[in-house]
């Protein structure tokens, strides 16, 4: 069964509010990041909260919130790994620093930098009403939000389009 997709909105069709909320999905992460350095779960919690608060506003906002949330999962996991490893070395003294640790540190820094760069660019483009698809996460979020299988009601879409069954009928025609 082929899946159909709802046409994407063009920049001029989007309201300023939608664009700002979509941009906020990426920028909010920066605010949470400072707290997340010692505890790399705060950014994820903030992203989840932002996602649930804003996702119903419009498909455009839903897409960007979902892409932002999903795209920070890998870096969060990588940062957790580093936190665990560093604690084992410096606090519990269970393992020693080796080349793998330094390679992982470099990998973590670069992964975070890539994520930061992409998030900034995506935020700027979202503000302009332009879609930017991250590798994997972009396709996944698009498939989730813009497919006809998505049954979520959005505040800026009229609901009668979704209601196919006419349960309530007038008493006479």
């Amino acid at each position, binding site marked *: 069964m082929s899946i159909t997709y709802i046409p994407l909105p063009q920049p001029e069709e989007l309201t300023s509010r939608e664009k700002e909320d979509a941009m906020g999905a990426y920028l909010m992460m920066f605010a949470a990041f400072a707290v997340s350095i010692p505890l790399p779960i705060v950014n994820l919690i903030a992203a989840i909260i932002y996602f649930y608060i804003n996702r119903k506003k419009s498909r455009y906002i839903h897409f960007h919130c979902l892409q932002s949330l999903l795209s920070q999962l890998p870096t969060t996991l990588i940062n957790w790994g580093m936190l665990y490893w560093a604690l084992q070395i410096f606090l519990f003294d269970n393992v*020693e*620093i080796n*080349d793998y640790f330094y390679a992982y540190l470099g990998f973590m820094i*670069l992964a975070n930098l890539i994520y930061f760069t992409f998030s900034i660019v995506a935020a700027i483009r979202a503000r302009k009403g332009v879609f930017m698809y991250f590798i*994997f996460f972009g*396709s996944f979020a698009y498939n989730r939000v813009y497919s006809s299988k998505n049954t979520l009601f959005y505040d800026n879409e009229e609901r009668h389009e979704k209601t196919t069954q006419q349960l309530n009928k007038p008493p006479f025609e």
Partner: protein
Amino acid sequence: MKQKIVKDLIKILFLFGGIFAFFYVGLQLLSEDKKNSWLYSGDEAKLISYEQEIKLGNLIDEYLIDTDETILLQNELIDSVVWAVRSRLEKQIIMSEYDYKIVVVDDDLVNAFTIPGGRIYIYKGLFEFCESAEQLAAVLAHEIGHVEKRHSVSKLIKEFGLKILFSIVTGGDTILLGELWESTVSSAFDRSNEKEADQYAMELLERAKIVPTAIASFFRKLNREELDYNENMEFLMTHPHNNSRIKASLSYETAGNFEAQDFDIDWKRVKEALK
């Protein structure tokens, strides 16, 4: 659509794996010296000059002999053994800033340690513990490694701060000297420092035509004897990693033309002289 998502996922995994491999391979391509100076040891020692370090060492040594009443062993045979081992190693040290002072402490502990300024203390118990002059040379080469890499002074700067060390060098506060001495013998070097000292020792032993595997045989004996770690040498404090140090010593590759020259020392006689 699903195919594209799966393809993207594979791309991401390859990208992450590639980044990690890039850093790991990059580290392997770095020379040991660069890796050690960039990643495995701090630059604290650069904050203090060699002259100041030597002065600090002299003050700690004075404290040891005068206040702590550490007794040095007076034995001609042992002195000649130390001289033989030391002179062979010292000749191979490249551009040293230190005038080494190596003494034997009259104590049965299996111990050896170094304080700033090129002063090395070997305990009598270590002579009894070692099975050959080569093993003693391995320990001494390791301690020389700590001296040349300035681990001792780096450790003191980390623990006490530069200000305190400067105040000691200029004023010679004996109370603080006691603290420094306690720290020198009671706390171990970082594992990275131990690794660096081992590496230095193996290279020095090779240049001095002493088998670098003497380090491995010494550690094997340590593992066999399972000495009390609280009472014995700094060398032992990294015990959980002794096996990796044995492995490193055994896998050390000497140059193709390397020919070991054994010491002409009757080790049984040395042991008897200590009884």
